């Protein structure tokens, strides 16, 4: 048996991330008193290196490592989203961790390992690698969710995330095993060639198990129950990273598995995901109305946004894939921006979490409230913001695939969703502030991260042409 050839260039981004992770881990272990900005700098450097390697692959379209790793548009586009998410997470968390007195060195390797898992998941072309990557990304996230060790909510968040995450991994693994039983392969492109002729009961059962596993990860209804509690309890910077990153990686894998492996069976799974998409949009939007805690509100909003991406998945076309990728990019920036605003909302260890804490902040700090308003309007999908363009492309893809019904549900739930984003805006601008000082907690890194997010949110709303083109070219699977 010949030694498998290793495509070093294709795995260079992951190597950079993991290498950076190991380096920061070792530095932290042997020099525990090292300045944190060294670790943060190294993390950003390895993310930069990984981005360079990813960019280096931009004209490659191939399947490497014996068919288990895809180098195609979807993988590369998703990787760029994930690397940007990671860099943003580092920027927004630096001072936050110090303020909450949880600035321990292992934060940086954990984030890097999680990112490596996410990028692998986005490129995995073999169900076994899908599972492996999912575990690589999940394990650091379980730890990160409980990073505030002395905070009960953070503990609760970590335990819930771990238990339900393990549960969903089991579903996924069971589905992979059944699929192997039915088709005798775990290769995603291999399955697509055999799946039509395989034993249908086994295949459908496997498909259902895989769908459940992925729906857990991307927080689709009815497997969304963990989201509000986990998002609320985890340190805010971790929540932002989780919301943007897990969703992007999870959807990239979901798209690959369902569009490539189960492409021949799309008439069987599309109706099921149709229902899941409708439920996700409706439940996410309606339940969010009653929330008075900002992180919970954004958690339900993330559920509703998962619904919109599912609309693009159900479209089951190259346009749909492109729309999903574009949406995930837009969502990453606007949701990280919103979480970063929560971080910036107060100095000291405790942020403004309750809606009433935000009352009248616009009168004291108009610029701050203005930026938050931008992110909220983008999340609500009001033009000319990136959120609107994202929704527009998703709806276009759905109409093009004949899913006009989904679009109608989508626009109606968007109107419902606008109501709760508006509640925050009302609190900020239209209600009187409580007497007393209202200090904010900005820091240079945080301001840098926020500026990037704000600029992207406006720029992609006004001039999305370049990235649409990129997503269009990326929306094709190889293998």
């Amino acid at each position: 048996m010949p030694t498998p050839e290793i495509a070093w260039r294709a795995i260079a981004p992951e190597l950079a991330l993991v290498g950076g992770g190991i380096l920061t881990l070792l530095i932290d272990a042997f020099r525990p008193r090292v300045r944190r900005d060294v670790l943060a700098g190294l993390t950003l450097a390895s993310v930069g290196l990984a981005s360079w390697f990813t960019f280096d692959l931009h004209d490659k379209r191939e399947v490497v490592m014996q068919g288990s790793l895809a180098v195609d548009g979807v993988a590369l586009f998703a990787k760029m989203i994930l690397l940007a998410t990671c860099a943003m997470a580092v920027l927004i968390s630096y001072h936050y961790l110090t303020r909450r007195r949880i600035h321990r060195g292992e934060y940086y390797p954990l984030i890097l390992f999680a990112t490596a898992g996410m990028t692998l998941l986005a490129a995995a072309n073999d169900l076994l690698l899908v599972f492996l990557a999912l575990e690589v990304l999940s394990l650091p996230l379980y730890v990160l969710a409980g990073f505030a060790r002395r905070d009960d909510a953070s503990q609760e968040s970590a335990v819930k995330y771990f238990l339900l995450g393990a549960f969903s991994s089991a579903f996924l693994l069971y589905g992979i095993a059944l699929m192997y039983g039915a088709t005798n392969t775990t290769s995603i492109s291999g399955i697509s060639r055999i799946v039509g002729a395989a034993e249908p009961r086994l295949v459908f059962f496997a498909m259902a198990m895989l769908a459940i596993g992925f729906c857990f990860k991307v927080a689709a209804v009815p497997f969304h129950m963990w989201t509000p509690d986990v998002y609320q309890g985890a340190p805010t910077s971790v929540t932002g990273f989780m919301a943007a990153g897990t969703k992007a990686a999870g959807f990239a894998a979901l798209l690959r598995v369902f569009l490539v492996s189960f492409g021949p069976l799309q008439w069987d799974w599309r109706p099921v995901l149709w229902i899941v998409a409708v439920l996700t949009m409706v439940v996410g939007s309606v339940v969010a109305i009653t929330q008075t805690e900002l992180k919970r509100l954004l958690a339900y909003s993330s559920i509703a946004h998962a619904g919109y991406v599912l609309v693009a998945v159900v479209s089951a076309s190259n346009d749909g894939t492109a729309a999903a990728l574009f949406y995930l990019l837009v969502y990453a920036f606007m949701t990280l921006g919103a979480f970063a605003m929560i971080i910036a909302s107060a100095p000291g260890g405790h942020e403004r979490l309750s809606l009433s804490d935000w009352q009248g902040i616009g009168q004291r700090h108009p610029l701050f409230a203005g930026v938050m308003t931008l992110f909220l309007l983008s999340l609500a999908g009001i033009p000319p913001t990136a959120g609107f363009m994202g929704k527009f492309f998703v709806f276009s893809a759905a109409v093009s695939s004949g899913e006009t019904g989904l679009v109608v549900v989508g626009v109606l739930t968007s109107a419902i969703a606008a109501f709760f984003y508006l509640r925050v805006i009302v609190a900020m601008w239209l209600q009187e502030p409580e007497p007393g000082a209202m200090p904010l907690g900005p820091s240079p890194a945080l301001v840098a991260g926020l500026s990037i997010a704000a600029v992207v949110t406006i720029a992609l709303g006004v001039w999305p042409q370049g990235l649409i083109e990129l997503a269009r070219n990326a929306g094709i699977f190889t293998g």
Partner: protein
Amino acid sequence: MKQHLLSWTLWIPLGGAILMAFVPRDRVGLIRGWALLTTVGTLGTSLAVLAYFDKSQAGFQMVEHHQWIRAIGASYHIGVDGISLWLVVLTAFLWPVCVLASWNVTKNPKMFMGLLLALETAVLGVFLSLDLLLFYVFWEGMLVPMYFLIGYWGYERRVYAAVKFFLYTLLGGLLMLAGIVVLGFQAKHALGHISFDYKVISKLALSHDIQRWLFIAFFAAFAVKVPLFPLHTWLPDAHTEAPTAGSIVLAGVLLKLGGFGFLRYSLPLFPHAARAAVPYVVALALIGIVYGAIVCAMQKDLKRLIAYSSISHLGFVVLGIFVFTIQGLQGGTLQMVSHGLSTGALFLLVGFLYERRHTREIADFGGIAAVAPVYAGMFLIVALSSLGLPGLNGFVGEFLVILGAFVRNRTWAVIAATGVILAAVYLLWAYQRVFHGPIDIQENRAVRDLSFREGLAVVPLVAAIVLIGVWPKPFLERMEPSLQRVRARVVVGATAEPAAALRSTKAATQVGGR
């Protein structure tokens, strides 16, 4: 300059708003001056548009076409025709008035003026866009500044009014968005590439079934804006709670977007569905005319009274558009301009009164004419124009609408005419209670007459009111060719023949001149 005239008109206000961000917050005089300068500059370019406008053409003029989002066939495509021309001029005309009316805003004037200027760009964009995606971006872009104008600077129940306004408009708008996406893909089926260009889409042959659904989707957006009964409930709250400039903008321009939408999109793009919808839409318009007028008569709050009168007057606009006769279409379009002027002026004058007495209750006034004769005179002219006195602008539009309806169906015309009678009742009665009679309340003795700045805001409006009333020909003849074209699309067998066009212009001119 000439080939980019529309772009200048469109972007000057937003440019002014962006530059406003660099003015220090406490330089209030500079802020006001800058806002006034920007709006007057926009008025100047819009008058240049008017001067260059070729009144013999039915199509779009001064067109600019650039690529925007190539991947989905959306472009920056703007142009003006006889339907949008006067609405653009009206918008540019009302904005300096709004700035003058808001001279005394003390609560964060920088943000107020900035939002007001941004709103002007959004409104002008809706009128000028010839690309459906661009149109939608401007349409929704209006929401945010208007929402803040009502919610931040409004009166007691402002938050409720602002949220209600936002959600009503957004829901209607989102349904339209679904319709726009479907239209884009209809273009793809027909031509092989997706397009949102108005000229491309207006050439599509849509099946009757698709037309019906799309008509409903677009109708949702426009009917909320007009507003048609029973979707009108946001209007009294929003108008009453908004600050004076907000009310002028809402009544003067934003309500016109509904009527404009019918003329630009619903009728030419979905003619079959529009024909089928006539009985229902006309019924709603007639209910609006009569219901609005009756509710008006019972109002105790002056601003609320004017708000309800808008429902009645806009009913005329919709009636005129949906009878599909050229008189009706002309009357409806002119009525939009007239209503913008007279209701804008009414809100302006009530705003001045509120600044003096801090109340809008009719019962709190009485005998004002004795202490503020010029103010009372202006109010009388504007009220008479609003109730349709011949020789003033309101008459021309409403008369043409009733005439147009009469040709189509006499019952409709009779019901609509009752709206005119009721308008006389509620407006004159309100005028009498506010301005005549003895001065019972001591504070009313101290009411000042109009100041120079206030006069500067009112006089142009009154001048325009009289001008349209005595000489409507230049207004009607510029809108006629474009309206004929709309009519030719929606009425089977109708042709836009020039001779007929000339005749009806003459008739309309005679009517107005009498």
